[in-house]
Every structure is written in C-alpha cells, then in structure tokens.
C-alpha cells in the first residue's frame, strides 16, 4: 500500500468514477482572488430571521442537546404537516408520513437509496442541481437525462419524458422552481406530467426547496395533483425560504411505506437531524408569512433589475420566474461557459458559475445568483456590461 494510484484503484468504482462537482472546482479558483463580487452563491444573503436564531440559543440553554426520535421531534413533524398542507396542498400524517433530515440533500440521498435497485433508470432534467446525478449513481441507479431548453423557458414537458422513458424507468425526479435556470412549471405542464407518471406507474421525487420563491405566479407542487400523492416523495427544507442553509434542515413527506424505508437508512447512518436545528425549524414555522414575505418581495425586485440589465446590455436570457437565479446564454461570444466565467473573473472580478457545472446542456450559459445586495448587483452589471462590450 504505497503511493496513491494503488489506493485509488481500491476505491469503490461508483465513487471513483464520479467527478467532483464543477462548483467545487470553480470555488477553488475564485477563493484565491480578493475583492470579487460573487453572483456564484447559491444561498440567501439575508440573515436567518432573528427570532429563529434567538430561540435556537434558548433551546441550547434549555438543554435540547439530545438525540431526538429518528423521524424528528413529533411537534416539529406536526408543524411541518400543517405547513405543507397550507402551502403545497397535500396532507400528511405527522406520525408516519414525515421524516426530518439533514438538509434536502440527505432526504434526496435516502429517497433514491430507498427506491432504486441496480440498473433502475431515473428520469431527471438538466440543467439541474449538482447532486442529482451523483446521488442516483451512488444508489447504483442509471441516470437518464432530459435536457430542458431556453426556448420553452427551461420547462419540462411530457413529450421530452416520453422520448426517454423505457420499461426500466422507475423514478422521475423534478426540481421546480429550478436551480440553476430559475424556471418554474405551469399547472398545465404539471398535469401532463402527472398523467404520464400515473400511466407509466412511475415513482416521483419532487424537490420543492424553492417553492416559496416564485415571483409572478404561485407555485404549484406536483404532489398536489390527482394521483400523485401516493407515488411521490415530497422534499422541502429551510435553507432557502428562511435563509437557514447552515442549519442543514430538510424533510421528506410520503406514503408510510416509503418514509419507513427512508427512515431505516436514516436511522442507521444519521440517527436524527440536529436537535437544535429542529428547534430552530419549529420556531421558523411559527410565522412563515412574516419571515418570507419581505424576502420574496426583495428577490422579485432584484430579479426585475437583473432581467432589465441583461436586456439592456443585449445578453439573451429567458425570464427567470423563481428561485434566485438567472441563466443567460453566452453562446454568441464563442467562448465555453467556463472560459467566459474565468475571463470575467480575471478581467472584472465578477464570479458566476459556468452553466456546464449543472449538466452538459448547461454549456453556453452562466448561472448568476441574485441573492446579493442591490449595490453588488448594480456593480456586477456595470462590470459585466463593460466585459461583453469588448467582445
């Protein structure tokens, strides 16, 4: 056992063959530079609401420092079930149908591991969050990509799914509002997809982490549509709407058989989500409208600003409708998205994430997160305009 090549050969193939996230790669470059304005941050710039932080301190003082039930505090699961019913239109039994997890990331990992046998195919759409493909591969599933396009607002349609479905397809994985495109789905598209999932008897995972962040029309969750609740694992968490990324708190809602299977893995690997984060989440659910309303309004203003700025400088961008990302096309500048991002970073000290980090079809696009102050956004737009004027 001398030298790392031999060690690498002894790694699990499933792990060895998966590349590191392109985001990680780009972070290493950006972090060597000073005074960069970053539009590369996939998390809110707002602070976690103070009442949530304050009550977390209180929970610590009161000694909420022990293991909780594997599923999470019952009180929290009750509050979650009520919130999901109110906000997403599906009702769940807090005793058996809700599982509190370490972020949505853990919930996704549990869900695919609980559902997939080796060789099972999973339909998912790209450009998408960096974890999906890897999570499917770690679970020995076969990722089958459906590529969404700017021409139809990066929406997913039944036709696109029909083209990729096979008898081995077991699972459909969706994320809207979408990271990195800012796309949302309208109700008609979702109804088609719901019918497709039912006809093909597919299981479904819907990652609604950005569900509260839809700016022009209210978000419709797939899980609220006829026939979907029983076959769907609904994922949501506190990172985006409450600006609680570091708390690492997510949850899954599904049929008791599915939650039981996920809970088994969770029980043996994670045991439970952090007790303090669970207390924080309970407080966050006390007045969501108050906490989220102002943030959504502010994001909408920034979305309007960045969309107008792109239009004025002649950068093609489909209108971002949700989450806090714009996904402009830079195809006409004859540079790969990585080279474009690197040159922009070097010349103007503006960090964006190359679209290729979110799947092969993200090539030719940039992800620009507008979860940053208006002052930063204005300066970034001035610099970006200067940069593309030279090209």
């Amino acid at each position, binding site marked *: 056992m001398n030298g790392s090549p031999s060690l690498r050969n002894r790694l699990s193939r499933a792990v060895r063959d998966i590349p590191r996230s392109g985001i990680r790669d780009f972070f290493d470059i950006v972090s060597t530079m000073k005074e960069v304005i970053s539009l590369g*941050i996939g998390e809110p710039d707002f602070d976690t609401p103070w009442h949530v932080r304050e009550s977390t301190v209180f929970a610590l003082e009161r000694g909420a420092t022990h293991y909780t039930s594997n599923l999470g505090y019952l009180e929290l699961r009750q509050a979650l079930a009520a919130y999901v019913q109110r906000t997403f239109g599906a009702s769940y039994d807090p005793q058996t149908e809700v599982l509190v997890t370490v972020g949505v990331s853990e919930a996704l990992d549990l869900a695919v591991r609980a559902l997939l046998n080796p060789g099972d195919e999973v339909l998912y759409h790209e450009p998408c969050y960096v974890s999906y493909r890897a999570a499917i591969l770690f679970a020995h599933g076969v990722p089958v990509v459906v590529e969404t396009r700017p021409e139809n607002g990066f929406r997913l349609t039944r036709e696109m799914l029909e083209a990729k479905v096979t008898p081995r397809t077991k699972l459909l994985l969706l994320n809207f509002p979408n990271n990195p495109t800012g796309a949302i789905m309208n109700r008609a598209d979702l109804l088609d997809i719901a019918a497709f999932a039912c006809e093909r008897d597919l299981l479904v995972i819907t990652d609604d982490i950005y569900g509260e962040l839809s700016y022009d029309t209210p978000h419709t969750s797939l899980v609220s549509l006829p026939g979907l609740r029983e076959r769907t694992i609904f994922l949501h968490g506190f990172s985006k709407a409450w600006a609680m990324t570091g708390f690492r708190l997510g949850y899954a809602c599904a049929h008791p058989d599915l939650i039981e299977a996920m809970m088994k893995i969770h029980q043996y690997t994670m045991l439970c989500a952090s007790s303090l984060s669970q207390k924080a989440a309970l407080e966050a659910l006390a007045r969501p409208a108050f906490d989220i309303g102002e943030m959504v309004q502010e994001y909408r203003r920034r979305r*309007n600003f960045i969309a107008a700025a792109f239009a004025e400088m002649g950068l093609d961008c489909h209108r971002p409708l949700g989450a806090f990302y714009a996904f402009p096309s830079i195809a006409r500048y004859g540079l790969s998205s990585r080279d474009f991002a690197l040159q922009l970073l070097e010349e103007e000290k503006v960090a964006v994430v190359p679209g290729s980090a979110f799947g092969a079809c993200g090539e030719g696009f940039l992800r620009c997160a507008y979860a940053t102050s208006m002052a930063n956004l204005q300066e970034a737009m001035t610099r970006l305009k200067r940069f593309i004027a030279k090209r």
Partner: protein
Amino acid sequence: MDELLKILQTNALEPRETIARMLGLPLEEVAQRVADYEKRGVIRGYQAILNEDQLGLDKVTAVIEVKVTPQRQGGFDTIADRISRFSEVRSAYLMSGAYDLLLFVEGKNLREVAAFVSDRLASLEGVVSTSTHFMLKTYKRFGVLMHQGHSDERLTITP
C-alpha cells in the same frame, strides 16, 4: 405600503434608474410618483442615518415624558404643536398610558436640556408635569444596528 416607498425608506439614494428596473416601471413614472409623494407631503425629507456616538459630538439627547391638559378646542394637538415647534425637540409623539407626550430633545449638554425643560417646556400653559431621561448609548436607529459592521460569512461559490 407602496413598494416604491419601501425602497426609498431602505435607501433614499437608490438611483431612480435602478428603482425603475426593480419595479419594472418606466423611469419617468418613478420620477413622477416620487415627485407626487413629495408634493403631497407623504415624503417629508431625506436624511442620513448617523452613528452619532462615533462622532464624539458635544451633544446630549433626553427622552421626556410629558403630562399635559388637553385644551377645550384642539385637544392634545394645540399643545403638542406648540411643543413640537421648538427646534430642540427632534421628535414628538402622542402616547397612550401613564403620560401624554413623548419627546426626544437635543442639547449641547445636560444643563442646556435642563434649562429647556424648566424654562420653556414645564412653564407652558397646559403642561402638568415632565419626567426627563438622558440617553446613554444608541444601539439601533431607524431599523439600523449602530455597532456592527456587515460581514458576509458565505463562501464565494456554493451550489
């Protein structure tokens, strides 16, 4: 509240062009609406929010609770208006509870404020009693924390 006013209340210096983009309105309309608010007196001025503790000024601020006798015609408004017009009075509010008016009064030093209270305020017809408290330190004004810099703890690139 009108979103335009919310934006101005957060940052009155936000360029009108930026506000127009944020609200998806033509620039002229934003300028016109601001002008209307100013004309109607909804917007009564624009001020910087200062951390005065940092400036080491020769200045003290007192918070004064005042009990008054409402007048037959004009109620509290007449007396409140008379008090508000003194330039030493920076803010004045009608309150429910144990006293009637709450004043924020500024002076160079304790003696100057004391002189204002005894000579000008307490002697006014209709003022029944006053109770003066001096401010020691400002932690937050107009929704802005005074003693904390802004730091962004986030990593520069995250998924």
